[in-house]
């Protein structure tokens, strides 16, 4: 019997991941309603915020409200990813599939990597739809193509981090209702305690500091910067002065923490 040794080679690990991504793509093809559900909410948001609110809300130092708010909506797409990944992983746990995968001689990263990779595709589809809707209501990028692309990369990187957070939530809380509840709470708290829809200038100082360092605020601020959507009156705090750099650092740091924690939890994840 050929024994490849205790650690699977990188090639095998990639092969496992590819096979599992194939599985998730089949899922997506067979349940297109999942993409629709994820896409519909942010697209509706764009329409509501861009048309209805634009006439009543003005952001100091910013031109049109839709220029300000689009970055916030893209961050929403990322936040929605928590629930998506959590439900996917929890379902695999509940149906015993993770047990089956864990009884196979696979590397332990393949299952979670493929889950998050496939869900990232969903997030990309939602991002694309939001972009189209945004352009439809009059949103425009005022910078060069390079920084525009960088902004979208940042949006997807943030979504990817949120998917890993979701996978962790899914392994720890296997109950679908509980997951729905917690991810809705998470979405509300993180988006309203951020600059997604309103600048933070009106908040009391301490709350403002918290909201400024909220990764959602950092990502949204960075995107505004990269797309030329930022208000002209900027604050003097650290996040106000270096939004892009800080967003990149925070997103990378979150990923560096979440991935190993996920793999650790996966090792002993149990069905019940």
């Amino acid at each position, binding site marked *: 019997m050929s*024994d490849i040794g*205790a650690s699977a080679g990188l090639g095998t690990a990639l*092969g496992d991941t590819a096979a599992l991504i194939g599985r998730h793509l089949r899922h997506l093809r067979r349940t297109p309603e999942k993409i629709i559900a994820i896409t519909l909410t942010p697209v509706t948001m764009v329409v509501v915020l861009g048309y209805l609110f634009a006439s009543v809300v003005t952001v100091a130092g910013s031109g049109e409200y839709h220029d300000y708010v689009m970055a916030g909506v893209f961050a929403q797409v990322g936040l929605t990813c928590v629930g998506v990944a959590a439900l996917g992983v929890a379902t695999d746990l509940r*149906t015993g599939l993770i047990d*089956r995968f864990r009884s196979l001689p696979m590397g332990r990263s393949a299952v979670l990597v493929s889950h998050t990779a496939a869900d990232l595709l969903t997030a990309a589809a939602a991002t694309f739809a939001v972009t189209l809707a945004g352009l439809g209501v009059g949103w425009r990028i005022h910078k060069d193509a390079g920084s525009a692309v960088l902004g979208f990369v940042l949006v997807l990187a943030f979504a990817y981090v949120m998917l890993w957070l979701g996978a962790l939530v899914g392994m720890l809380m296997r109950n679908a209702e509980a997951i729905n509840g917690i991810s809705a709470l998470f979405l509300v708290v993180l988006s309203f305690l951020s600059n997604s829809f309103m600048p933070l200038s009106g908040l009391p100082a301490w709350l403002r500091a918290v909201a400024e360092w909220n990764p959602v605020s950092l990502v949204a601020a960075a995107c505004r910067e990269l797309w030329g959507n930022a208000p002209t009156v900027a604050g003097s705090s650290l996040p106000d002065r270096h939004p892009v750099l800080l967003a990149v650092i925070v997103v990378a740091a979150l990923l560096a923490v979440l991935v190993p924690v996920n793999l650790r939890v996966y090792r002993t994840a149990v069905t019940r």
Partner: protein
Amino acid sequence: MDTAIRATGLGKRYGEHHALRGVDLEVAAGTVLGLLGPNGAGKTTTVRLLATLLEPDQGRAEVAGFDVVRQQRQVRRRIGLAGQYAAVDGLLTGRENLELLGRLLHLGRKGARARAAELLTRFELEGAAEKPAQTYSGGMRRRLDLAAALIGRPEVLFLDEPTTGLDPASRLVLWEMVREQVAQGVTVLLTTQYLEEADFLADRILVIDTGQVIAEGTPDELKRKVGEEWLEVGVSTDAALPQALAVLAPVAAAQPEVDRTGRRITVQLADGIGTIAAAAVALESAGVPVTDFALRRPSLDDVFFHLTGRGTQVGRAPEEGAQPLAQGPEGEAERDEKAEKAAPGEKAGRTENGEKAEREPVAAATARTGDEQ
């Protein structure tokens, strides 16, 4: 390698609850061990520990010569697992399910395809191979699950209640599959609540209850523990019961047991086989209206009852009955499975139901005999 599975002092706690407390077991290569026990005994926990899904708090175990904690990958390369609830991807078709596992077992794209096709044929799933597994019946899911466990041609196969919810025909098919695997040298550890299943498939049986081994041996050895054969006599009227009792008293070795609702008397015979004729003649000449007169050997059900003081929730395996397959278990098991899903915490309550069910099939057997006459 002589011993395929060896566990010593295996212990597992869930919080304060001791699910397993020091289980020792040994399974010789190429044989079948039946792990028997009531709900909550620790069967699934044992399987999960041996299949590297859980780590023991105490003790150690080796499967196919490798330590289940320190050499997980080597163990996983040699085992197949079919868990208590079929673990199949409902959105994928039967074929896709098997091909995916084949690829994850590194059979290659072609190899995986060939192996999947082979197993679909063997398990009579070709007709449904292109349908999503969520449209399968319970029995089909079970078969797909077992096929999935066999993809990697495992040396050691773990089957956790493999026939729960199957109809008698599917159960027979599955039994044949298991025997085929054993004939090819595969070692099997199977948990079951069906004593007849353990009797049919297992070379040795381990009975566990509340996380401890309470008996071990071959099916015959266990049956011998319960004692000799006995005579069961059924009568057609209530009035005939005392009459029959009086007639049988002289040939009885111990106080006869009476089941009034079933109108049935169970007698341990004083002189074994020799007294059967005497008992028959005595009943006949006294004019007792006998509906049933049978010599009964102890079944594993009796062993189980004897050891744990409880029945299983399934019917008695009819050792000498007209039907070789238990008539009760399927429906019963299905209902039980559903009850389990609805109220996973209420295991204690189910044992009580089990005790009630214990006597039912006996009454049913009497009724059947009556009908025939």
